[in-house]
């Protein structure tokens, strides 16, 4: 790492996340003064975007090579009052909460009190949504059955493809003009709305070119007063870069990165879309520039690495926009999920791993930053050297990169009807979501609490926490004579709530289609321009909506426990069991012990437990898959939680798998915390019983102690564990390299860590099976090894 990257990295790490009112004030000024009075909504939105870019402050950090900040300074985070206007109380919470805080200074509070809140209160998109959504939606939402992604953020959930590396904005403007000239006002009833969309897109494209020019002007000024000759030359060069891109297609490695970054800023300034934005297959996009320039001698590997590191710091300077309420609970992190994809296959299906793939992995390891997130796509066509290199970074224990199955992703996407070339150009974004990069709008609508629905089923439609009947009356538990009657009642409830969720999402989508088009984002994703249709209105080539199932492990183990203890063995009745759950096992400790230690558990390659997993999967899949949305998207399922498994557990009583009230439910498709006691190969065998190819992504977490990866042999074995899982069509796996804190927790709560394998001394063992003195020794060693 060069000294200046070290300095910039340090500054980025030390910068305090804070709220900047700049964008909110500009957008308020724009609408308050009717600066686009009478214009169509898309044109209004485009002009609002231009107004922000023309007036926002420009920040160039000392020594950096890639320029542009979303706010006035690193980690100064804008807000989006047209989506959701924060109250003064929200600002206080953001300022003072312990985790994921944002500092709010007095001037910002005042701007909110005097200008922003008075204008937007009751007029934000959130207000529109909440008013339009029906009572059954509100009841289920309050009960914690599901969350709603569009409550505080805009739909985004998409990734840049290769277009921007081939086309400058000027050329995209020509494309727009060509489409306009061919609009059929005779035969196409939508020709006029298309014209409005296209005019909006053109304004947005022009706005980003001028925004880059504003940077060029300031870079020239900085250059003229710069004493250091080398930096002076660099600043002049950077000014030239900002004049070349995004106006024109990039000609150099530097220009390619800077172009993407302006696009990124455009997307996250226009709105606060989920998962910010993402360059996707960065090694594929950059390799041609790298090869061309290194061949010509105009770029060294060291130069390229420094540019990439400067680029990396840009991501880290941009925390996710502030979230409050349920949105903060479901995604409680500064990470904004820009997930760099490395590896995979090329459009023609051949191995895509290249020199740039390894350079990016080096950058990830050296930068060790929270953002951007990173992952490797592993196809059966990729070499072992590639996956082993990735595992060596995993071992250092900062949770990156995660590992994805390219061959599964391609099958998932083609099953949904995508062209194979588009599927091969895709990957995973956000946490684990499959998408066709540059051509798909794949919107996550919210998390869905499967174990909570079992709780509602056991209560015949009643939610004990909000004290309301919110579900169907599917029968009193006394009347369930067989397990299948209970399972059928559960199926009906899942269908019922999935229906409520999808209806609500369709209402919300209609509101976004009408009020919040995204002309800038539409420039980047095909085929919005050629169709003259906005990204939010179905302009993308492919449109998908996801509902993300949470707590698969918890609901599976709960059903298994009920089946075994109540219906097979007759050891207790459903009524008795429910009493114990309502009492949070107080006075029923022996029953809880039996539930935890003497019923089969998902994650052990045990058919007796995994059968319920398949039932849960089919029930959830049938309830969601294939429903349609107003913009023409198809609803699909995926299985991931971000941090929502904690929130979903907090709204629940105790559950039949032995989980206590309020405790987290299982995350992703991982087994219940600690329930897998037969090692990782049994876990992947169980997890592979899910039909991953019918989802749009699943998340599997495995815990290892750092010492486990001690030598090359061990790294090869972990790599072959991954290959085995992927051969069975597993979608994703990540290795959580444990911390000393986690080991301490394992000493206190061994029941949650029955799966934890540690390397002892020429020997691996379950942590729980070690004597206390040995546990202490391993904790001390882990404290030593981890960074």
């Amino acid at each position, binding site marked *: 790492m060069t000294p200046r990257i070290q300095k910039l990295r340090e500054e980025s790490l030390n910068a305090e996340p804070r709220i900047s009112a700049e964008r909110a004030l500009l957008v308020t000024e724009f609408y308050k003064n009717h600066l686009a009075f009478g214009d169509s909504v898309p044109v209004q939105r485009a002009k609002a975007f231009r107004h922000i870019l023309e007036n926002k402050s420009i920040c160039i950090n000392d020594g950096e090579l890639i320029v542009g900040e979303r706010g006035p300074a690193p980690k100064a985070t804008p807000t989006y009052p047209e989506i959701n206007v924060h109250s003064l109380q929200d600002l206080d919470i953001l300022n003072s909460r312990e985790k994921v805080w944002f500092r709010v200074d007095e001037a910002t509070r005042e701007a909110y009190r005097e200008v922003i809140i008075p204008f937007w209160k009751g007029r934000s998109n959130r207000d529109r949504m909440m008013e339009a959504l029906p009572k059954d939606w509100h009841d289920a939402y309050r009960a914690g059955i599901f969350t709603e992604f569009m409550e505080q953020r805009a739909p985004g959930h998409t990734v840049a493809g290769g277009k921007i590396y081939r086309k400058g904005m000027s050329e995209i403007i020509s494309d727009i003009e060509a489409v306009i000239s061919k609009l059929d006002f005779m035969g196409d009833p939508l020709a006029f709305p298309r014209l409005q969309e296209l005019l909006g897109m053109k304004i947005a494209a022009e706005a980003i070119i001028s925004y880059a020019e504003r940077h060029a002007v300031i870079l020239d000024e900085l250059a003229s007063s710069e004493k250091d000759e080398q930096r002076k030359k660099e600043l002049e060069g950077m000014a030239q870069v900002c004049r070349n891109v995004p106006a024109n297609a990039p000609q150099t490695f530097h220009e390619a990165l800077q172009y993407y970054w302006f696009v990124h800023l455009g997307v996250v300034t226009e709105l606060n879309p989920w998962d910010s934005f993402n360059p996707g297959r960065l090694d594929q996009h950059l390799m041609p520039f790298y090869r061309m320039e290194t061949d010509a001698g105009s770029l060294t590997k060291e130069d390229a690495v420094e540019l990439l590191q400067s680029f990396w710091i840009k991501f880290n300077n941009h925390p996710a926009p502030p979230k409050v309420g349920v949105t903060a609970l479901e995604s409680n992190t500064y990470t904004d999920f820009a997930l760099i994809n490395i590896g995979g296959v090329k459009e023609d299906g051949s191995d895509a791993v290249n020199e740039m793939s390894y350079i990016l992995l080096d950058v990830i390891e050296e930068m060790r930053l929270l953002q951007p997130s990173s992952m490797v796509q592993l196809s059966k066509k990729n070499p072992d050297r590639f996956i082993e290199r990735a595992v060596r970074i995993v071992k250092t224990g900062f949770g990156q990169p995660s590992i994805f199955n390219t061959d599964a992703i391609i099958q998932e996407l083609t099953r949904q009807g995508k062209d194979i070339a588009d599927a091969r150009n895709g990957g995973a974004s956000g946490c684990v979501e499959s998408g066709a990069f540059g051509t798909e709008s794949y919107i996550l609508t919210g998390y869905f609490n499967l174990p909570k629905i079992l709780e509602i089923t056991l209560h015949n439609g009643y939610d004990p926490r909000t004290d309301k009947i919110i579900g169907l009356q599917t029968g009193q538990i006394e009347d369930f004579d067989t397990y299948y009657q209970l399972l059928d009642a559960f199926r009906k409830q899942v269908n019922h709530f999935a229906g409520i969720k999808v209806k609500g999402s369709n209402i919300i989508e209609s509101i976004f289609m009408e009020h919040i088009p995204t002309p800038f984002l539409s420039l980047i994703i095909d085929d919005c321009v050629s169709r003259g249709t906005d990204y939010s209105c179905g302009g993308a080539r492919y449109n998908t909506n996801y509902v993300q199932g949470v707590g698969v492990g918890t609901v599976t183990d709960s059903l298994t426990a009920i089946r075994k203890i109540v219906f097979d063995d007759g050891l207790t009745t459903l009524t008795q069991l429910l009493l114990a759950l309502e009492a949070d096992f107080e006075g029923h400790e022996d029953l809880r012990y039996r539930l935890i230690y003497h019923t089969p558990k998902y994650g052990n390659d045990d058919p007796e437990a995994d059968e319920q997993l398949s039932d849960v999967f089919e029930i959830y899949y049938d309830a969601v898959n294939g429903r349609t949305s107003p913009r023409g998207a198809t609803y699909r399922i995926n299985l991931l939680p971000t941090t929502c498994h904690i929130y979903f557990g907090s709204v629940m009583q105790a559950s039949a798998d032995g989980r206590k009230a309020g405790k987290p439910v299982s995350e992703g498709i991982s087994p219940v915390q600690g329930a897998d006691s037969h090692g990782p190969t*049994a876990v992947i065998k169980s997890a592979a019983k899910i039909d991953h190819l019918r989802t749009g992504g699943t998340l599997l977490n495995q815990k290892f102690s750092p010492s486990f990866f001690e030598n090359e042999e061990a790294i090869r*074995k972990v790599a072959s564990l991954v290959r085995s899982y992927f051969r069975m069509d597993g979608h994703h796996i990540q290795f959580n390299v444990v911390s000393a804190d986690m080991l301490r927790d394992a000493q206190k709560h061994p029941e949650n860590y029955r799966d934890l394998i540690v390397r002892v001394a*020429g020997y691996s063992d379950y942590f729980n099976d070690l004597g206390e003195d040995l546990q202490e020794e391993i904790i001390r060693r882990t404290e030593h090894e981890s960074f």
Partner: protein
Amino acid sequence: MQGTIFDFKRFAVHDGPGIRTTVFLKGCPLRCLWCHNPESWKPEPESAEREIRLDDRLYREKEIIGRKVTVNDLMKELEKERLVMEESQGGVTFSGGEPLMQPRFLLEMLKACQENAFHTAVDTSGFALQEDLLRIMPFTSLFLFDLKMMDMRKHEQFTGADNQLILDNFRWLMQQGKPVRVRIPVVAGYTATRDNLTATLEFLTPYAENLEQVDLLPYHRIGMHKYDKLGICCEMPGESGKPDSQEMDEIYSLFNSNGHKVTIGG
């Protein structure tokens, strides 16, 4: 055909190449002081008490250590790991105890594994009848052979039996042309003395070229709590028996410089 096992471990990564499943056969003729698997000693299933803590309660359960299994039972379980074994070029390891204490069962298992195309390893103390070794030879892909003490008297003192049979078996095995890895428990003050290491090296010198590898297994005291559980008096060496990393490095270099491929931990 039935045998008695005391453990069946999937994702075993230190008992031979690749990801393996290790089947632990019950019964051992030796009583090594440093043994971390005292539950392997007796050939028959035995009962013990297991303690499980849940919140602040302690649950005690009777636990039977060791179970009778058929070849079919085990083959069904092994089949579950086939894909992982194939992908990692792993296989099945038979360990113990001393697996050759159940020679017929071991033979049947090895035959079944070969029929089903599983790579097999047998981890033996070498304290077994040569004719039994001969019988399993055609069905064994790899031998893991433990060498402990070279001095006959000390061997008897620390393991309960002298080493003549073991060393004879080793010499004989090395002439059979099967892949062999040597495993040496490194116990400071016991096996890891200058004398014993030098003698071991000397003993191995003629085989340096034919040996696949030497695994040095640093002594640990994980098994200590098992002695209590089983009601066996624990004579395991204390903390001082654990070699430190510098000692391990020295021993590693010692073997390495004598032309052996060495691992720490296997």
